[in-house]
């Protein structure tokens, strides 16, 4: 099958070409793998290229190890242990996607004789920097422009622009009014207090007028401030409410793959703390920034009109401070990012401890858990202390440098007054205005810290909001769920592109029939269920309902017609009534009771003192496993689904309870298309057809008797269970 080409014979231009990066010793190299006219060429650097014909090849497979992977050609009629496979090349995980696509091209060629190509967009690599795109994103975050934070901030405030501008206008007016006060102070000193020409009664009258004017201005300013603050608070509450809703909504819509990569502590911190940090920054700091920027400019003009050279002295330290802020910015951001990670870890561990408190207590590992949490808290404390110390070291220096301008003004201004170049009142006015100049600059010196916290939180929020939720390209908004036959056509799926979990799935299910899915753990039964439920989408092939591709039906329409009973029942905090009504909140009480009766749950519910109004905690701690399961069946009954999924619905129960639940399930499945998974084969005795899944493929289909007669995988499973049953007796 393999031939080495003479060095002079270079392969023709490749139809499909990919690169590999490891040699046969697992060292970095630069090689190419190309496919052309039914042959694969392997070229590693200056080595002689190898050529492999695909004649007599059954498939190309990718085997993934830890940090690396291989590509192998499997011959037809290969040895059972694949010891006659041909190793094509080795590569790092960076090449997985590319190689997965290459495998698809080759396997398609082997099956059909057609040569397809690799669409560049599926490689998910930035054409600019060559880095991989982060999962769920279609942009390279490394190359994304610097306006990202600004754009997203504007995106957040856009719905509130009008209200924010009004609040800013009020605070600006308040600020400008306050800025007039030093003019009256100067007038008070120069016109009245230092006057020798005026009579004492005129001086008193002047002082009173000045004082009254200052009092009036300050009062109006305070009123404006109060109104502005009230407005700002109202906007900020609406904004954080909106942001939390958007984030929570997105989390609900994200795929399971995406959500399972984040801890619950992490997600909770994003929804609660990060939205709060962003809200605080935008409304408080944003408003403050507007106010201070306008008053800074206004006062600067006034100062220049009084004395340009003294103004220059005031501003002399500003470039030094701004430069220092710029230089420290990166360090401060890294430090606050580290603090964020520590806080998130503490939250996650705390969440785990609280959630798993029963396990902890039953294993008597309280001390170990306390020590673990304690260590994390100490680590967080250490990071916080280090950050505060760093800040405490930087901030006083910045304040000191900033204050130098004040000393210079007092010295040179004082000399000017003594020498007669400036009036006392003017100097007083000047020094009073310094506050308006230095306050924004001092605030700017604290900005890196606030900005560090804000950008960290904003990025964490937009990591979720920007994530692509699912492929909606195929959805037809008018498509409806019309109950009918379900057809799997050549379905192939893997949670990772390079690891196929289900392949060559062809299955026809008549409307209203019950299908029992059987197979070893990890065979792909639950994956098949996930595809039917549309929690994931097929890599190739399709699932149709009544001839319509299920991907075209909008999720909310599809889910209204499906119901699932899992092995692990999850009951929400609330009453039994609320938990059953979760499937249909508008259900009439008589329907809830009917559903509970159908699920054999009504009896035990009525034995409880509060009946259907009994409060149950998270996970329904005060109910037994069987009772919880019956509530979840009642939930499914109330849904009145056309498509029902039973995923190990009775495997965690004792035989007596199971009997009662089986009765409930028998009522539920009647007339509905049902897919049921059960390890205890006896529980599938009512199934119309049994489908045996083995290593991701459908191995056998038929009724119980047919499959036993076949003496295949199913027959072996039945025998094994009978033996186990005998042993346990």
């Amino acid at each position: 099958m393999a031939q080495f080409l003479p060095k002079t014979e270079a392969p023709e231009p490749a139809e499909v070409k990919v690169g590999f990066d490891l040699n046969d010793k697992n060292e970095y190299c630069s090689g190419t793998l190309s496919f052309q006219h039914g042959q694969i060429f392997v070229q590693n650097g200056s080595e002689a290229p190898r050529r492999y014909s695909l004649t007599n090849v059954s498939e190309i497979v990718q085997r993934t190890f830890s940090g690396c992977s291989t590509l192998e050609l499997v011959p037809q009629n290969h040895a059972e242990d694949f010891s006659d496979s041909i190793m094509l090349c080795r590569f790092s995980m960076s090449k997985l996607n590319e190689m997965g696509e290459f495998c698809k091209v080759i396997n398609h060629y082997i099956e059909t004789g057609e040569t397809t190509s690799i669409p560049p967009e599926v490689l998910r690599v930035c054409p600019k920097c060559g880095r991989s795109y982060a999962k769920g994103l279609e942009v390279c975050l490394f190359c994304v422009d610097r306006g990202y934070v600004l754009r997203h901030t504007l995106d957040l405030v856009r719905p509130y622009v009008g209200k924010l501008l009004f609040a800013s206008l009020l605070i600006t007016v308040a600020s400008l009014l306050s800025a007039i006060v030093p003019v009256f102070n100067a007038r008070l000193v120069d016109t009245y207090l230092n006057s020798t020409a005026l009579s004492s009664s005129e001086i008193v009258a002047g002082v009173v007028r000045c004082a009254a004017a200052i009092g009036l201005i300050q009062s109006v300013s305070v009123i404006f401030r109060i109104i502005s603050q009230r407005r700002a608070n109202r906007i900020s509450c609406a904004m954080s409410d909106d942001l939390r809703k958007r984030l929570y909504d997105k989390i609900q819509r994200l795929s399971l793959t995406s959500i399972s990569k984040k801890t619950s502590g992490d997600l909770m911190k994003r929804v609660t703390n990060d939205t709060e940090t962003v809200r605080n920054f935008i409304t408080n700091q944003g408003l403050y920034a507007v106010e201070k920027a306008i008053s800074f400019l206004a006062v600067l003009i006034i100062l220049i009109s009084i004395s340009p050279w003294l103004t220059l002295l005031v501003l002399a330290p500003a470039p030094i401070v701004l430069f220092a802020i710029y230089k420290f910015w990166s360090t401060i951001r890294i430090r606050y990012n580290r603090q964020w990670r520590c806080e998130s870890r503490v939250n996650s561990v705390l969440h785990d401890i609280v959630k798993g408190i029963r396990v902890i207590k039953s294993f008597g590992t309280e001390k170990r858990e306390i020590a673990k949490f304690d260590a994390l808290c100490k680590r967080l404390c250490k990071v916080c202390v280090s950050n505060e110390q760093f800040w405490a070291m930087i901030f006083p220096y910045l304040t000191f440098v900033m204050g130098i301008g004040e000393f210079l003004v007092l010295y040179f201004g004082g000399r000017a007054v003594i020498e007669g170049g400036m009036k006392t009142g003017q100097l007083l006015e000047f020094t009073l205005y310094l506050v308006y100049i230095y306050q924004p600059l001092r605030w700017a010196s604290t900005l890196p810290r606030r900005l560090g916290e804000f950008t960290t939180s904003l990025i964490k929020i937009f990591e979720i909001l920007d994530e692509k939720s699912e492929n909606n390209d195929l959805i037809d908004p008018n498509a409806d769920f019309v109950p009918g036959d379900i057809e799997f056509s050549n379905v192939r799926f893997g949670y990772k592109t390079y690891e196929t979990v289900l392949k060559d799935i062809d299955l026809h299910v008549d409307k209203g029939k019950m299908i029992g899915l059987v197979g070893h753990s990890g065979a792909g039964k639950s994956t098949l269920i996930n595809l039917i439920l549309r929690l994931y989408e097929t890599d190739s092939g399709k699932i149709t309902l009544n001839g319509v591709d299920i991907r075209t039906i909008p999720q909310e329409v599809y889910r209204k017609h499906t119901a699932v009973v899992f092995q692990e029942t999850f009951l929400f905090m609330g009453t039994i009534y609320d938990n059953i009504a979760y499937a249909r909140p508008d259900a009439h009480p008589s329907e809830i009771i009917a559903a509970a009766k159908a699920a054999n749950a009504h009896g035990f519910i009525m034995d409880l003192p509060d009946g259907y109004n009994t409060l149950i905690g998270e996970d329904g701690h005060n109910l037994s496993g069987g009772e919880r399961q019956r509530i979840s069946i009642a939930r499914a009954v109330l849904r009145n689904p056309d498509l029902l999924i039973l995923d190990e619905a009775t495997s965690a129960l004792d035989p007596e309870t199971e009997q009662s639940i089986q009765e409930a399930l028998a009522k539920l499945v009647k007339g509905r298309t049902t897919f049921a998974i059960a390890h205890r084969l006896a529980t599938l005795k009512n199934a119309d057809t049994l489908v045996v899944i083995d290593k991701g493929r459908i191995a056998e289909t038929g009724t119980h008797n047919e499959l036993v007669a076949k003496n295949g995988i199913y027959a072996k499973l039945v025998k094994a269970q009978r033996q186990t049953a005998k042993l346990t007796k």
Partner: protein
Amino acid sequence: MATDTISPETLKTEYLRPDECVFYVSNAGFIGAEIKGVRYDRVLLKRALPFGAPEDYVCVSDIEKNEIGIIEHVSDFSEEQQTLIHKELTLRYFTPVISDIISIKEKMGHFYFDVKIGDVQKSFTVKDLSKNVRMHGENIDIIDIDGNRYRIEDLSAIATRARRKLEPYLY
């Protein structure tokens, strides 16, 4: 045996002794083994404790991942056999060792590493440092967004300049 309280017999764990297990390289270049008189032309070797004890508890299984037995200590085997086992493990576990850190940049919640692995310069991206930078004694293992693994063997041994770049990103 593993512990005094739990014997392998109790747990039905098949520990492979050097005298009943011989590894070899098959004609196709795969590692095979003859175990207790049964010939397997292709076996898989997997570390049970890749971080804690990479030289101990190496599982031997067939290509379908059915476990044949466990090597308790690789060092119990002859030198020639150890070489074969190590060669196979090196091919299964690709964890290049970082010799120098050129830069670490943070952008939009992702961390961009530019490092040197021997003479080769590599760039990779890490997301969620708390999950993907793990410390095991003196070793630091880093997993990038593609699933590649990198190791820093002994943080104190790398250049101070490089260490300073990494430290803010460790807990």
